[in-house]
């Protein structure tokens, strides 16, 4: 049987071809960004406070999220970590599942979970109100939640 090769230098259709390339670049770029974000996160939360890890309480978090800088910081950390992690899991699923229906279901489940977590996390960061219950004042110094 002769193998006929039609127009060897004809370009191919590129449907969806750029997606994997972008995902690959995103993994590297977000990985580098995450290294710095996580080092900063761990330092500020666990190492730099006077009593180390014991300093973390409701007031500590409320104090951080009163600043737009830390809202943005934690928002970035949330988005990058979840998309990076979920895309990593997607490649693992693609590597290890042999049945197409299982691969598809696992991938859909992954992205649904990631989207839910990102949505909830973003909601918490942006709409955080330290005065959860006006009757309970002992979380924070009184002057914060007066009235």
């Amino acid at each position, binding site marked *: 049987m002769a193998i006929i*090769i039609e127009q060897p230098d004809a370009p191919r259709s590129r449907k969806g*071809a*750029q997606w994997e390339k972008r995902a690959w670049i995103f993994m590297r770029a977000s990985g580098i960004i995450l290294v710095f974000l996580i080092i900063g996160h761990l330092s500020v939360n666990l190492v730099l406070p006077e009593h180390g890890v014991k300093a973390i309480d409701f007031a500590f978090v409320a104090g951080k999220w009163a600043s737009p800088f830390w809202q943005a910081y934690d928002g970035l950390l949330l988005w990058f970590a979840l998309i990076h992690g979920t895309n990593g899991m997607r490649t693992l699923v*693609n*590597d290890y599942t042999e049945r197409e229906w299982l691969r598809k279901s696992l991938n859909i489940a992954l992205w649904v979970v990631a989207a839910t977590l990102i949505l909830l996390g973003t909601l918490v960061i942006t709409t955080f109100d330290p005065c959860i219950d006006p009757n309970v004042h002992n979380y924070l110094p009184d002057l914060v939640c007066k009235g």
Partner: protein
Amino acid sequence: MSTAVESVKVIGEVPSFQVTLFVRRFDPENDAEPKWQDFDVTVHGTDRVLDALHKIKWELDGSLTFRRSCAHGVCGSDAMRINGRNRLACKTLIKDLDITQPIYVEPIKGLKVEKDLVVDMNPFYQAYRDVKPFLIASDSPTKERIQSPEDRARFEDTTKCILCAACTTSCPVFWTDNQYFGPAAIVNAHRFIFDSRDEAAEVRLDILNDKEGVWRCRTTFNCTEACPRGIEVTKAIAEVKQAVLRGRV
């Protein structure tokens, strides 16, 4: 007189020893599943795994089926999984393996087993064909196409491929995803992508910038370890990735 003959014999003597080979056998007409079969053979210190397989086939069990052609590491017919690693049976000296333990010989993984150590190589060759492994040039070949030693050095490593499939069938991505081009096809694309005389680098980069192209590579380096020709396969794949990213060679 007799001592002289004896000493000559001792100098020329090749030590021989007994080894046990466990061979993964599969007969499509009678077996539902592959099974292990063990053979005890006496081999010499100069023998390779291929010699042991020959001994089994010629003296013990003529039904043992495997591919081999040149038997000297050039044709790439006898890639198999020996003690869990992909190697050419004709380049693996038995004395270099741990002969206190049995030697396990299996067909290469990820391709359908046809019989014993013979697998269906068609998906492998199809991926090879898909990357257009031939020179594509617009000018007519009326005179020599000059190339500098520096330009030649860029793809020197990937010209060494013998298409034995040891790399592709050592790749964990290929084991589960037969659509993946696999290291061997990318190596052979690399050979032409980085050839200054070739004009279709962009076409090949486009082919490999695919869902099942270079981005499936997880840089596990199994392919580089498996290559009996010592090609730096993972490096070649990384160079193709870089070329796809930059959009040029």
